């Protein structure tokens, strides 16, 4: 293995590890988050989850549009 290939392998390993750690952290944070989050930038009008939404924006939208 030449030097260039060796350095590339180290770089690839480092990036992969960083991506794995980052993804793991984000997934862990998502799964352990007790708070409900909005994945639609609080645009309730088009959201399919609005009926079950417990966020203040969602509740407000349901009230205004009398959605049960």
């Amino acid at each position, binding site marked *: 293995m030449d030097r260039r290939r060796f350095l590339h392998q180290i770089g690839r390993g480092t990036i992969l590890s960083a991506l794995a750690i980052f993804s793991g952290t984000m997934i862990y944070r998502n799964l352990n988050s007790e708070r409900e989050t909005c994945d*639609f930038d609080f645009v309730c009008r088009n959201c399919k*989850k609005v009926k079950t939404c417990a966020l203040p924006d969602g509740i407000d939208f349901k009230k205004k549009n009398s959605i049960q």
Partner: protein
Amino acid sequence: MSEILKYISRTWNIKKLVAILSMFILFLTSGFPLFAQQQRFPKPEFESGYTQPVTSMPEARSDFFAIFDVLVLIVALSLISWLILKKRSRRGVLAVSVFSILYFGFFREGCICSVGSLQNVTLALFQPEYSIPISALAFFVIPLVYTLFFGRTFCAGVCPLGAIQDVLLLRPVTMKRWLQKVLGLIPYIYLGLSVLYAATATDFIICRYDPFVGIYRFDATFFMFAIGAIFLLLSIYVARPYCRFFCPYGVLLNWMSRFSKHHLTITPNKCIQCRLCEDSCPLGAINKPVPVKVMEDRQSATKRFISLSLIIPLLMVLGGWTLSNFHENLAKVNPKVRLANELMSFKPDVMLPSVEIEAFKSAGTPLTELYSQAAIIIEQFYIGAWILGAFLGLVFGLTLSSLSVFKYREDYTPDKGECVSCARCLKYCPVEK
């Protein structure tokens, strides 16, 4: 009439006709005439102060379909990587491109896309209260991982933004190297700005100014429609103008691709230096061989590279200082800062309140709270502007330094960073496996 037809047939060739015809079809299909008609008459003025919303988003997907999209992405990436690296098929790449345009483009209306997911990831990194959707995270990470192993196969035909430009490239024009280098700096600026605005929870500028999303959704402002049409027209002659000179996600893919394990090769076997592929790449991403007699003495080249590299810290400080002076201007994009500015200059006796001011007053939030929030955001922009300026200084410095480096090469090889693995060069190689 027959004379005219004869004249046309004498002076025009098929390629010209195809180009003109494609431009005509493009205009027809992009909904331009319909949109232009809509804009002919002024919109009605409602007394309620209602303004027509300019942005639209596709409907949110249920969890099952969000996972389904991720699966489609994985399948498309695996298939295109196999088609490029094993089958070496340009037709296969085209087929996947058409699928991506139809599925990720028109059916999914360009959302969610990996390019935009960069902002979700940034927001999740800097704002702990924001939980990134798993599908957005997957759309960000998976193409990067594939690029680390197989090169930019995502750009080749899975990205709907790249695919639509690629299929329209009919008459590629070769661009000057220096122009490519200069324009190639724009994505770094765009990347820096999009990260800054996402990190401060100000705006998702990549999505807001995506030129193709309006075409995919058949719904955008006239301005964005026009920008999209310009990019598509430009794509007929200039290979992938958005990917090369704007795409911020392309910057990350470029970095990843440099470390790729199995990248596309022009020749399946030993290069015979026939030079047939030399001008085959419309992106100019083929490295030509550097003969030994041209090669510079290693020691002097290293010395020059080091001396040039010494100016990098200087450029970083200069860039950081310059942009930090404009942090207040950059922060004005933030809605809270903008509202605070509006309220500061608002004179109730001579001015009518805007909708935003009325909404703020009706919410009953104390003015001091808004001002303190705006001050915090401006402070964040000050730090962010320093980092962004330093980053841009680093990029400029490294670009300058890289111009002085000549790597010795024996064969024609794709530039691993710039090559989008479109597989156009493959058919030029006469070498069989």
